[in-house]
């Protein structure tokens, strides 16, 4: 019965495709999958925005949105109907294009932003047998289309003819380029161990159990530090606090989408969140075992529930971090990427190599753990050393 539930979407797809003549099937199958992704993830996005607002509210000892429920009734659903008026507001707002803007590029930027993000969903395994396009080089595909987002950011910032937009775009691109390196390098350690760029292979490598505990990569020293690096880099890639300098509202209004309103703004918003979900999905696949269960006695729960559960959990950590940490300064951001994360990622690759070639016993744990911990402490000390902590001196005030 649980196997049935596990494969419910796959079976539903087969059942649906059964109605279509044989010739059209190769065309219709991807179309159904694409429309499924286009339905599920924006819906997930709308729910997550409510969760984010409510969660941050609770952290700040507020209620958060708790009014809007089902329209025209008294049912409030604790405010989970809020996404509907939010979306309607976005759709019905006036679409303003600055007079000096480059009209075509200004129009294309949100579209160019959304397309690579949606493309990156095609390689993610959402559950057992639930991968749209299982490329041999799936991981490379993911990073390649992820890199195309930067072009969209630049287009938005440059075409608006606004200094804040341009500054925001430059910040965003500099940040994305810098943090893409630790992101990819931390994924490389997984690729080295698994020996494949195919995401289903990476999951299959993690899908067995010793003493009832899964072989997730995060449960190894190199995998743990790789996951931490990947997590921080994905925070930066998706422009979330504390790395939200590109849209630091106190400095540059809204960054590269300052001059966007109405539906185009909604597309940017959607693109940003979908990009965040995609990169978290990749992190889950690489380090947290994808759709596999952490303990063997929980393996009966359908795989897609595990995937979405892990996704939601990590998004909650993102929200939690957003409500906790203040924004970094630009030089702190760059220092952190180049002087801490990059060396640590390189050392992590070395440690992964040592892990691969050492015999599987406790010595391996000791050596790799000691290397990682030592590198972390030393690099962290190096990062903190040049900081002048103490009373702040104002040059012009006072």
């Amino acid at each position, binding site marked *: 019965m649980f196997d049935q539930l596990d494969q419910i979407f796959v079976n539903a797809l087969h059942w649906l495709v059964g109605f279509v003549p044989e010739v059209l099937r190769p065309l219709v199958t991807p179309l159904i999958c694409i429309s499924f992704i286009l339905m599920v993830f924006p819906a997930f996005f709308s729910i997550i925005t409510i969760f984010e607002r409510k969660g941050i509210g609770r952290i700040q000892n507020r209620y958060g949105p708790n009014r809007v429920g089902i329209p025209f009734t008294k049912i409030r659903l604790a405010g989970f109907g809020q996404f509907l008026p939010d979306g309607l507001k976005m759709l019905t707002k006036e679409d303003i294009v600055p007079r000096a803007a480059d009209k075509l*590029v200004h129009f294309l930027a949100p579209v160019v932003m959304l397309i690579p993000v949606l493309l990156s969903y095609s390689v993610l395994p959402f559950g057992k047998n639930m991968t749209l396009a299982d490329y*041999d080089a799936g991981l*490379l595909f993911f*990073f390649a289309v992820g*890199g195309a987002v930067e*072009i969209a950011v*630049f287009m938005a910032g*440059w075409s608006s003819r606004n200094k804040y937009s341009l500054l925001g775009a430059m910040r965003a*691109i500099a940040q994305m*380029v810098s943090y893409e390196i630790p992101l990819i390098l931390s994924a490389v350690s997984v690729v080295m161990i698994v020996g494949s760029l195919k995401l289903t292979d990476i999951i299959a490598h993690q899908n067995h159990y010793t003493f009832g505990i899964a072989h997730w990569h995060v449960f190894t020293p190199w995998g743990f530090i790789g996951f931490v690096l990947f997590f921080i880099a994905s925070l930066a890639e998706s422009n979330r606090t504390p790395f939200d300098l590109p849209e630091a509202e106190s400095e540059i209004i809204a960054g590269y989408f300052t001059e966007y309103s109405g539906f185009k703004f909604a597309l940017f918003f959607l693109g940003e969140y979908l990009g965040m979900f995609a990169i978290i999905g990749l992190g889950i696949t690489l380090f947290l075992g994808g759709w596999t269960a952490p303990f063997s006695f929980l393996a009966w729960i359908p795989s897609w529930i595990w995937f979405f559960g892990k996704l939601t959990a990590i998004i909650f950590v993102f929200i939690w971090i957003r409500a906790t940490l203040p924004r970094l300064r630009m030089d702190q951001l760059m220092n952190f990427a180049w002087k801490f994360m990059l060396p640590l990622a390189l050392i992590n690759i070395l440690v992964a190599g040592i892990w691969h070639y050492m015999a599987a016993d406790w010595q391996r744990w000791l050596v790799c753990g000691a290397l990682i911990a030592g590198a972390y402490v030393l690099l962290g000390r190096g990062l903190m050393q040049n900081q002048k902590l103490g009373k702040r001196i104002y040059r012009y005030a006072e």
Partner: protein
Amino acid sequence: MTLALIITALVTVLAAATVMSLRNLVHCALAMAVAFSGVAALYLQLNAEFVGFAEILVYVGAIAILIVFAILLTRSGETPEKSVLTSGWLAGVAVSAMVFTLLGWAVLTSSALPKEIAIAPAAPVKNIGDALMSKFVLPLEIVGLVLTAAMIGAVIIALKEDKKDNSGGQP
């Protein structure tokens, strides 16, 4: 499949033509990104998955961004008032037209090209990796060295000249 190939080829060709005919440099850079995406799509249609993805990663994700940054850093994002072509541009266009005619004639009439369509070869990532790590390991190392040298060189060239230290020679 042929229709897709022709559409991709047309997009690539049009984007490439756009790159060289627009006045605004940023538009040129964006059209270049489109042209490179078209080339990547052509690679995908030729069953070269890995190379296609690498093309997007390197050209759209890195080189296009680099060029855009260079355009902004040299303040050439605005449309120039003067002519954008060099003085002897007619000769250049003529030469390139001749090159294209010659190449096109050769491609269309050559008998050396294989006439029958070969079955799609597979290029699994594993094989590429094995080849890079065994047969082509020396070129790989050299490329790595060249890239490192180029990176350091680029940083040194583009570094801001230090006002106090002029003895270090002109960068």
